[in-house]
């Protein structure tokens, strides 16, 4: 019998840690209780999952781990509402349901052979991390051209995955630039908004694709910068957030025009979005 799409996989939180100085973003290593479920759950970076807590409901989160990290899923969650507050209070070992993977991932077919420009802001770096880990995997790295990553946050303490960022900055197969709005003592890297940094880096737009995730205001200005740099609208890839319930295109609340963010998105090109009403 076909699986009930409303029935989550049984999983548990293996490890949880605080990601930022404001202590409102936590990362969760989630492991399936049944290894068969782990096999059945095969995602592609850019996709999301609905996490489920009995009594609290469900909420969608981008999957921050790459498929190459086969033994767990990673989610980084900002405490905002009822569900996320409860999630933050959970100890390792706590059961959690996982439904997914859902949605359309980043356009990996189109990204093959291209130079990649990944631009992230704040805590919206989760699926971008999944993408970077996937690209950097030795088995995959040869499939892509250069990899430029620009990542900004309000303060150094608000950057996610800091140990990993430091590691990536040591490597020569990824060109990672970090920037913050407000530096603190000890910050030796860029200060300023992502767009200024991007414009100073001047990535070539020929044979390149960019992926942008971040707060709406950052996305708005980054698109302008990328267009100025000569990127085609179809080569600017964005990921949207929307209030969701079912995650499978039925409950009717996450639509933008005729497209449902849960199944037709969350990843859209700038060109695709331009054809839709501005209801996001």
């Amino acid at each position, binding site marked *: 019998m*076909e699986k*009930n*799409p*409303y*029935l*989550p996989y*049984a999983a548990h939180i293996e490890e949880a840690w605080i990601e930022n100085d404001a202590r409102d973003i936590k990362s969760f290593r989630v492991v399936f209780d049944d290894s068969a479920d782990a096999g059945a759950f095969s995602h592609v970076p850019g996709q999301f999952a609905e996490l*489920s807590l*009995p*009594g*609290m*409901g*469900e*909420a969608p989160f981008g999957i921050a781990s790459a498929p190459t990290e086969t033994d767990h899923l990673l989610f980084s969650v900002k405490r*905002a*509402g009822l569900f*996320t507050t409860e999630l933050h209070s959970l100890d390792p070992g706590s*059961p959690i*349901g996982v439904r997914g993977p859902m949605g359309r991932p980043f356009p990996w077919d189109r990204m093959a052979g291209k130079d990649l420009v990944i631009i992230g802001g704040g805590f919206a770096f989760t699926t971008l991390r999944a993408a970077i880990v996937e690209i950097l995997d030795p088995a995959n790295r040869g499939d892509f051209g250069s990899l430029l990553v620009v990542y900004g946050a309000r303060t150094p303490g608000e950057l996610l995955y800091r140990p990993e960022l430091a590691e990536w900055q040591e490597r020569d197969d990824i060109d990672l630039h970090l920037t913050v709005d407000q530096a603190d003592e000890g910050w030796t890297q860029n200060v300023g908004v992502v767009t200024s940094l991007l414009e100073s880096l001047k990535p070539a737009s020929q044979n390149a694709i960019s992926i942008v995730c971040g707060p*709406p205001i950052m996305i708005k200005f980054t698109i302008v910068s990328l267009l100025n740099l000569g990127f085609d609208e179809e080569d600017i890839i964005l990921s949207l*957030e*929307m*209030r969701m*319930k*079912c995650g*499978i*295109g*039925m*409950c*009717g*609340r*996450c*639509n*933008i*025009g*005729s497209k449902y963010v849960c*199944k037709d998105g969350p990843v859209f090109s700038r060109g695709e979005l331009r054809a839709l*009403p501005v*209801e*996001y």
Partner: protein
Amino acid sequence: MTEKTIAHTDLDRFLDCLKEAGTVYVPAKDEAGEVRLAEASNVESVALAYRNFRMSPKAFFLPQNQTLLRFNEGRVEEPAPPDQGTSFLFGVRPCDARALLALDEVFLSGDDEDPYYKRLRENTVVIALACERPVASCFCTSVGGGPGDGAGSDVLAVALEADLLLKAQTPRGEQLLSSVEDLLADAAPEAIQQAEELIRSAEDQISPVRVDNSAELLREQYDSPIWEEAGLTCLGCGTCSYLCPTCHCFDITDEMRGKTGRRVRTWDCCAYPLFTLHASGHNPRPSAKERWRQRIMHKFRYAVENFERLFCVGCGRCIRNCPVNMDLRRVLKRVGV
């Protein structure tokens, strides 16, 4: 399969046969004089001449409260399927039967199927009853249907003077009719002609609105001032959606006491401000203007773009029941449809 007839005097026997196979619902007058679908065993006389039901029969397929999951001491379980067997809905009007085709697109056509809808849909046989007297809010003929439309039903019945004319619309309908073969006769040509006349006369009573190019026109009218005006008048209640046979948006909430509870699906409505409100406080459809536009766009444009089907069957419930008497036909006309 050819048309059959059954004498009105044999209707009870026909329903008795159905009762042996499952639960039968028939149109009957309630205490307040409203005709609604009621379980046949509690009904003394079946109503055949009635304006359409106040509620569309969509609740038989998409119940207003549907338990999706049960939580039991930390275990998450699928609810046990209800042990109800087959249901027979006798007397569904053609517009409401047609609406099932729209719901099928949503719940059965995508990558995921909705198991709850699917089970109810598979276990429910729809016997539609052609409409002999439409009312002023009806416009089924404008949206692809009609008073004698069999789409979405398993059997279409037409109430003639002495008989019911029955015509199977699906294999399931054919099976049903062959199971009561003893009660049926092949329809005489006069009966078929009488049915056609009845339907034609009903069609003539309906004033049409043109909607065939609605998707195209609405695409151009996204920024029309009419949405602002409609948003001003709309009270933001959910009456239009809740009564609509094709509206299907839902909410999912958990209801818990201690470690026991359920995850339940309930009807929801795009007219409500909280429908799209993000946890951050941002709302992509912040006012009644955007919400009203969404409802019309969904039915007459987005559904066409996604499924090549209007999500409106012209039953007119939203027009008849709007507390401030808004009429979507007026809006469609204004938009130029």
